[in-house]
Structures are given as C-alpha cells and as structure tokens.
C-alpha cells in the first residue's frame, strides 16, 4: 500500500516515478512517467491532481496509451471495431472473437479537455456544421477527420432509437462524410403491459420479453457483421466465454465501487474511480489488461480501507454524481470542497451490472442493452439512482449537465423531483463544459454550498 494517501500533481508524479524506477519496481511496458503524455499533447493533465499510488499510475498510463494499442492491433492484423453509443454491449461481443478489438470513439469527447483544445477537434466539428449547441462528443467528428487519435475502424457500429439526438445526429453526419455505419436499433424501454411476460433486467429495471426478443434480433445482425469482419463464427460458446470474461471485469469493478463508496474514509479519489468505471465499457482496447489494472487498484483500495486511511476525513460530504463530466478537473474540485463520491450514474450503469450467465448469451446481452438507464424514462433512471443512493449512503445528488445534450435539458427536473419525493435530500445541477478554468470559482461556490447543505442537514 502507498504510504500517505494524497493527490499529487503531474510533476510530483514524475518525481515519484523516478523513485519507483530506482527502487526497481516492475511495471507493464506501457507504464511510464505521466509527463511524457503532456509532451505528446495531453497538456490538460497538468491541471489535474492524481492519486499517488502505483496502481493509479498504471490506470492512467493504461488509459492514455489506448491509441498505441489500437495501432498495434492493426499492425498485428486484428480487426478494429468502433462501437458507438451502446456503452458496453457490442464490445463484449467483439472481444469474444480472438482477432477483433473494440474501442469507443465517443470517448473522444475528453480529448478537448485532456489536450486543452489544442487538437482543434471542436473547430473541425464547427466547420462541419456541428457547433457548440451539440454535446462535446462532437469532438469525435474531428478525431475521425484528423485520424490522429485512433485508427479508423474496420467496422463502425452505432445504436440508435432511444438514444440522445446529439449523438445520433453526429453519427449521421459522420456517415454523410463517407464513413459507413452499421446501425442497430435500441427501442425505448417500456413497462410490460397486462398479459405480457415481464423480465427483470440487470440493475433492476423491468421490460417485456417482446422487447428483449427484438433487441436480441438486432444483436444477431451485429453478430453477423462481426463474423463477416472477423472471418470466423461468433457462436454461443464463444459469446458465453466473452460474457464470462466481461463479468470478471464487472465483478472487480463492483467490489471496487462498493469499497470506494462505502468506506468510512474515502479510499480513492473520484477521478480515478471515473476512469476505472470507463474501462468497463470497452476495456480500453485490452480486456485482460483492463482486468489486471482494476485488480491492482482494488488491492490498493482494500489495503487502504483495512488501514483506515484515505483522502479527506470521515466527515466528507457524501455525494452521488449523475452524468460524466466533460472536464475531468471538476472531479478534483469536488474533493477540494470537502466532498467525496458515494455512488455514480455516469449514463452507463448497465455496463457495470453483471451480464446474466443463466440465459442464452444473446438474450443476456439484449437484457443488458435494454438495462441502459438512458433508453428508458428519466423517472426510471431516477429511481435507480435512489436505490443506489440508499445502498451507498449518499447524502446529496449532483447532476452534472452536459452542454447541449438533448437529454440533459429535460431529465434534471425529473431526477430532482423523484429524488426529492423518495429521499428528501439536496439535489444540485451544474453544467460542465470541456474546459472549466474560467468557471472554476463559480463551480467551487456551488459545490461548497452543496457541502454546507449536507453538513447543516446532519445537525438536524
């Protein structure tokens, strides 16, 4: 375990890295000083504060070297799938094949933050008619055009239907620019009607069997496209093994989340937990290594919890965070204000839930896809948030609006109402653009007000 748990700057990490090297620590080949990524253009990293454990160093390096792995995979003759929007379903299928890697092009939405806009991706999106009235995921368009951030996939899939209009429109724009896209439909999840067979989905939502059948048929089309790409069959046995492997990652993350969110003292910062959750969506282009990275992080957290050490004190305000932030720095701000994360719903809870292993694989994946909190009603999503708040003991909710996102304008009020009705705890809504530097004082003030509200309520 790391000695004193604290968050350190990039410079401090680089000095600490040298010490680790001198001490002869053996690390995977992709682990190096974080400063090298700044030299490569990720200059936004200097604004962040990082957990000081070697496990966190490995996590960050793993995240920041994904492009290298994708290019290596191409060199090795593997096929590359860009799985857009579904957040955790198509990648499980792709990694069931031994000559396919999948990644998540939507992840390019963090490039403007990490590269402090220097990559010019938002400017390219602007020039293509996708301006700042769209979600920051529009950076993805620029990443495709420049080909500088990931190799162009051999197959691009995109789920549409009950998804946000921003992404659907941006994907269509990409398609219009000449990138073929395999579209598949995810219907709006609805409640079963009288006489319909109701199935409980991973995470607790319920859907009619007919919708599961429909999604299953869509995933069969996806499977056929993957088979054609890979030149090999994607049968039930392979899918079952793929699901089992994905569940190992999800199990590990579930244990990590439970410990991180419920320990008396916060054992790991919010930012590293956000990155850890992100790994489960598409495994950062290496499923086995993503498991190893998470396992090391889990061991670190276990040892910290056992020793009763961590960040902040036991009186830190316990916050449930809704939606991912476009500027990672904001996760640091939360801790600076005296709060910690005790529960999250970053739009992809379904990618964290265990995939059923007691039903045929495609049916299990269809259930998982339909469990996406964003394909159902905002009220459903809010009720799941409430259930997780109870489970993790959060004292307030922070809804972070994504600028321009079609869902954010309408869901905040619904979430606020449901949380108020069920739990009577404070809900704060903030908006987080890709770069918040100029807004930091105002954001801090709002976060501090939330922390104060939590503390006041404790006195009652």
């Amino acid at each position, binding site marked *: 375990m790391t000695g004193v748990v604290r968050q350190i700057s990039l410079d401090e990490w680089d000095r600490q890295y040298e010490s680790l090297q001198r001490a002869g620590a053996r690390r995977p080949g992709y682990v190096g000083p974080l400063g090298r990524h700044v030299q490569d253009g990720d200059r936004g990293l200097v604004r962040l504060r990082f957990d000081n454990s070697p496990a966190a160093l490995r996590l960050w390096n793993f995240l920041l070297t994904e492009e290298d792995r994708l290019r290596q995979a191409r060199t090795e003759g593997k096929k590359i799938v860009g799985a857009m929007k579904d957040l955790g379903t198509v990648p499980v299928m792709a990694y069931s094949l031994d000559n396919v890697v999948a990644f998540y092009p939507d992840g390019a939405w963090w490039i403007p933050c990490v590269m402090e806009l220097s990559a010019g991706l938002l400017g390219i999106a602007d020039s293509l008619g996708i301006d700042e009235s*769209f979600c920051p995921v529009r950076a993805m368009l620029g990443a495709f055009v420049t080909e500088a951030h990931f190799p162009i996939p051999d197959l691009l899939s995109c789920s549409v239907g*009950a998804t946000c*209009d921003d992404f659907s429109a941006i994907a269509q724009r990409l398609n219009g620019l000449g990138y073929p896209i395999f579209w598949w439909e995810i*219907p*709006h999840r*609805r409640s079963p009607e009288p006489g319909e067979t109701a199935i409980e989905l991973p995470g607790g939502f319920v859907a009619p069997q007919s919708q599961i059948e429909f999604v299953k048929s869509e995933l069969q089309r996806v499977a056929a496209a993957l088979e054609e790409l890979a030149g090999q069959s994607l049968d039930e046995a392979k899918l079952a093994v793929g699901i089992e492997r994905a569940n190992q990652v999800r199990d590990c993350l579930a244990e990590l989340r439970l410990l991180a969110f419920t320990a008396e003292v916060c054992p790991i910062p919010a930012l590293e937990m956000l990155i850890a959750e992100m790994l489960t969506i598409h495994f950062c282009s290496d499923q086995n290594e993503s498991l190893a990275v998470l396992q090391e992080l889990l061991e670190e957290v276990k040892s910290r919890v056992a020793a009763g050490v961590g960040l902040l004190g036991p009186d830190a305000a316990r916050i449930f965070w809704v939606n991912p932030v476009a500027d990672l720095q904001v996760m640091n701000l939360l801790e600076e204000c005296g709060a910690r994360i005790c529960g999250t719903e970053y739009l992809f809870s379904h990618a964290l839930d265990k995939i059923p292993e007691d039903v045929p694989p495609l049916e299990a994946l269809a259930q998982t896809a339909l469990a996406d909190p964003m394909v159902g009603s905002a009220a459903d999503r809010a009720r799941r948030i409430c259930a997780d708040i109870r489970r993790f003991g959060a004292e307030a909710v922070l809804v972070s609006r994504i600028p321009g996102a079609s869902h954010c*304008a309408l869901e905040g009020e*619904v979430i606020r109402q449901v949380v108020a009705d069920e739990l009577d705890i404070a809900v704060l809504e903030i908006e987080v653009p890709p770069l918040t530097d100029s807004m930091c004082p105002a954001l801090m003030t709002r976060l501090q007000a939330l922390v104060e509200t939590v503390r006041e309520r404790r006195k009652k």
Partner: protein
Amino acid sequence: MGKIVYTCPYVPAEWVAAHGLVPSRVMVRTAGTSPAVGPKEGVCPYVRGFVDEVMSRNDVSGIVMTTVCDQMRRAFDIVVGRSKLPAFLMNVPNTWRSVAAQRLYVDELRRLSRFLVGLGGSAVSNGELAKVMLDYDTARSSLLAKRELMSGRQFAEMVAAFNMDGPGAVSANVAGCSAAPRGVPLAAVGGPMMAEDLDMFDVIEESGGRIVLDATESGERGICQRFDRRSIGDDPVTELAEAYFGGIQDASRRPNSGLYQWLKQHFEERGVRGVVLHRYVWCDMWHAELARLREWTDLPVLDVGVTGDCEADKHRAANQIGAFLEMLQ
C-alpha cells in the same frame, strides 16, 4: 367520440379513426412558456409548445407521443407526471431497412390499438380500416392536387386543418383556392412548424419568393405516401405501415439517405431554386443536416433558426429572407 391528440407524422390518423375515435394531429400554436418542462435553456421550443398545448386542453381523451425525437420522448415523462390524461408513447424505430424494424412498427400499431380500445375505442376491423384509408387517401390527393393554387401559408394551413380535423376539412376548403402566387421557387425544409412560424411563408412571398415545396414535417414531407388501393383490401395494416413508416422520410432516420432521395426528386420536379431550412434551436436532428444539405445541393441554402421568441425570430427571419431573395432574383 374521444379526441386523440398527437403531433408526430408517423402516427397514422386512419388507425385512430378506424377505432371510432377522432385523430387530431395538432399544429402547435406557439412556443410554450409553462414551467412544466423546467428551464427553457436547451429545450426545443416546439417540444415546449406541444407540452403546453396538450396539457392545457380539456377536449382530449388521450395523447400519443413517439420516440422519433429524444426531447419529445423525454417530454412524455413530463406529460405523464403532470397530466391526468391517458398518454401513450409509441416506439417508432429510427432504423428502417431491417424487417425487424418494420415489424416493430406494426407491433407498436397493435399496442396503440389496445390503448385506444382502453379509451373506449372499438376493436379495429380490416373492412373499417380500409374504408377509412380510402377516405383519407382521397382527401390527401385532392389537397395535393390543389397545392399549386395555394400560397405557402394556405397550403400549410390546409394540411394542418386536414391533420387536425380529418378529410372533411379538406373538401370544405380546397374549392376556394385559385390564386397561385408568383416568385422565385423555393423549398422550405425542416421539422414541424408552429402556427406562428407560418409568417415566414408570408415574408417569403412578400420578398418575391414562392414556396413550391413545403418539405417541413408539417407540410408535404410529413404526409404519408399514397396507398396502393389494390393492397388495401387484402392487408390494410401492412399497407398503412408501408405508407407511413416506409413512406415518410425524415432527418431522424438511420441512415437518412431516403430523405435526400425524396428531396432530390421533388427539387427537380418543382424547379426549386433555393432552400430555406427552418429549424428550432436545440433540435439536433435538423441542425446537423444543415451543413450536409449545403454540401449535397448546388442550390443556395438559407438557415432560419427559430428560438421560440416570436417577435425576435420574425424580424431576424425577415432580414435574412429579404437578402436571400435579393440574391436569387
């Protein structure tokens, strides 16, 4: 008879009418102002207007909304939460090329049928459905046949009247149309228009233009394709689905290549010389099409963004349209 209100063109009026209920596809009058949908920022003015409109009416038995647009899908939550009216959310797939998507649309029609029966509608029979389809088809044909004799506003209002009140509204009104406006032939393209937006057509005509193609959702583009009358008798449900789901081309479809084929055909047929894209701020679907439309066509394209602030929108649009037509004349 109970009135069923909706605004999405993929909800077939014939299906509602065949259940013995009154379909009424509303043309939203104005951008909504009620606090029901929360802050205005980020919310499409049309969605706000629709929520306000349906929640303020007392002559309605049920509301049908669809999943075609994400904000409308989410507004359904608000309507259900704040209104006592029975409401139904119909899944309309964005994909359209697979048999499964087409089947899902038909399945959703059948689910809608159960909702309508629950509101007091009668079970639908093929015979009744076929009869209703023929009535609507005839009315639509006569409406479209008179299009050239109408101004942009007259045509849009006639379509709105047909959508709101059914075939009777057409036969009562088309006879009086005889004055075809002149001017530079333009196409209006975009999502649905609110009644207050129709001023744009007046401005176009006052500035020397003429709408020869209303390719907005509330215009010709939002009208289903003609039925194959031979098929109606055999399998009216399939024919209905084909005419609506297969026949209405929209920016939301994935891929939306069909929209561009439809536009190409109509631009050529009508001799369109310029395009006015009417879109609401925060409507990502149509906003994203603006740049593509400009790349795709050699015609000049004018972007008219509507915020829902009627007076400001009107002045801005008038200036834009005036300059646009000056260039084209």
